[in-house]
């Protein structure tokens, strides 16, 4: 049934009826699978991919590199859990390489984000250092192109 997951991953708005037709199974099988995945946490949610640049909403995002001291019992989990609870934080990843946590933060202005980093993140006990990289332009997000249209260059024979 990973075909079903792939279809949902490409477009979560397909109805169960459409999905059943596409996969050649019953609607009940589709809804049962989805219910099971939601219960088991395989599917964590459904949301639209929005290009906020094209709306009136002031929207800035930044990637913050965080170097932190892991706690004796909790490792990185404790600090990650603290950070993920801030509503400004969109994503938190534990990273390999030059730093420990990558945090995607959004706000209305560059200053919002800078202040959030200075006041909320840097001040946390385990945080050793931060480096803030603002997103200037979004070309592709969640597998979707944000820039221009895909043009069909095929001719007909």
């Amino acid at each position, binding site marked *: 049934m990973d*075909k079903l997951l792939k*279809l949902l991953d*490409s*477009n979560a708005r397909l109805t169960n009826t*459409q999905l059943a*037709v*596409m*996969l*050649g199974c019953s609607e009940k099988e589709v809804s049962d699978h989805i219910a099971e995945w939601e219960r088991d946490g395989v599917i964590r949610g459904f949301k639209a991919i929005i290009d906020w640049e094209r709306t009136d909403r002031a929207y800035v995002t930044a990637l913050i590199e965080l170097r932190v001291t892991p706690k004796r019992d909790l490792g990185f989990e404790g600090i990650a859990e603290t950070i993920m609870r801030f509503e400004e934080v969109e994503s938190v990843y534990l990273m390999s390489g030059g730093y420990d946590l990558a945090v995607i933060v959004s706000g209305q202005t560059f200053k919002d984000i800078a202040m959030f980093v200075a006041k909320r993140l840097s001040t946390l006990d385990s945080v050793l250092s931060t480096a803030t990289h603002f997103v200037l332009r979004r070309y592709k997000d969640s597998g979707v192109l944000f820039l221009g249209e895909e043009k*069909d260059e*095929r*001719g*007909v*024979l």
Partner: protein
Amino acid sequence: MSYRIRLNKTLEQLKPSGIRRFFDIACEMDDVISLSIGEPDFSTPWHIREEGINSLENGKTWYTPNAGLAKLREGIANYTERHKGLCYDPQKEILVTVGGSEAIDLGLRSLIEPGDEVLIPEPSFVCYSPLTEMAGGIPVPIVTKAEDAFRLTPDALRAAITPRTRVLIMPFPNNPTGGVMRREHLEQIAKVLIETDVFVVSDEIYGELTYGDSAHVSIASIDGMQERTMLISGFSKAFAMTGWRLGYACGPSELMEQVIKLHQYALMCAPTTSQYAAIEAMEHGDADVEEMRAEYDIRRRYIVDRLCGMGLTCFEPEGAFYVFPSVAITGLTSEEFCQRLLKEKCVAVIPGTAFGDSGEGFVRISYCYSLKHITEAMDRIEQFVENYKRT
């Protein structure tokens, strides 16, 4: 004063492709949603492209042997054995061509004497009849019907064979109908052929793209048929390599010896870069084909369901990437349906008549498009059909 070029009369009288003509109209309009294109919307898988690029970086820009790179011919032999259970000698029985189309042309020219009849199941792709005529042959269409799942039946075949019949074209999986011949159907056809000296040119360019439980079966794999069949396939459809222009033909050495002669004089060899890329496709491309096939299958199911829902009765295609619904419910001819759909809803599909007179009453819809694109087009076709159903 003015010089008049004297042209080949047969050529002059050939009609231009009906697909092309329709597409040209669509191209002049804005906002057209097309479902008319017969080539994959996928790009060639990266690892295959990379082998083409590598060959260029390494300066492999010369001619190859006329019959194609030895390693590619071996790759084709292995692939054909793996997928069709057929053994061909890469030295003497395999030719790499400039697309499947060249192979069809060479095959017909090698087999036909002036006045010979060539049996062509229809509806089918546009090239068989013109190429037959250019080779001096006489095209004899055999109509396949929706109620027979657009398969060639042994009765229709038997009825069409005359003492002048030289070649039977086997265009399956079929463009435009999506019809396929399963093993049991091929066995019946073979039974008829085995009593004649009719030779088969089997165009299996869509051979990898069949849906349902059983894989494509080549007529050459039926008992006694390999010696009387030229198997044609290529890289365009299965591996999304249309622009590389690469196909191949496999057949008995006495035929291939002649075919290679023609290829050598007309084409020299197939493009070198493409051949290097194709080696990779033969050796490591199976998973890509499977992935694309699975995607086509999803679209196929969706599109058939939508068409049936709006009353365009539709034989469920079992191969290739086309659906061939009847437009009878609208009371329009194929041509009218396509022209009005284009004008009123800006959706381009191809009239069935482009694939032979027997395509009247049908249109060809391609699903080489994203689901999003197909959904939008289906919504528009639905509105269009609603309007015509009411009046």
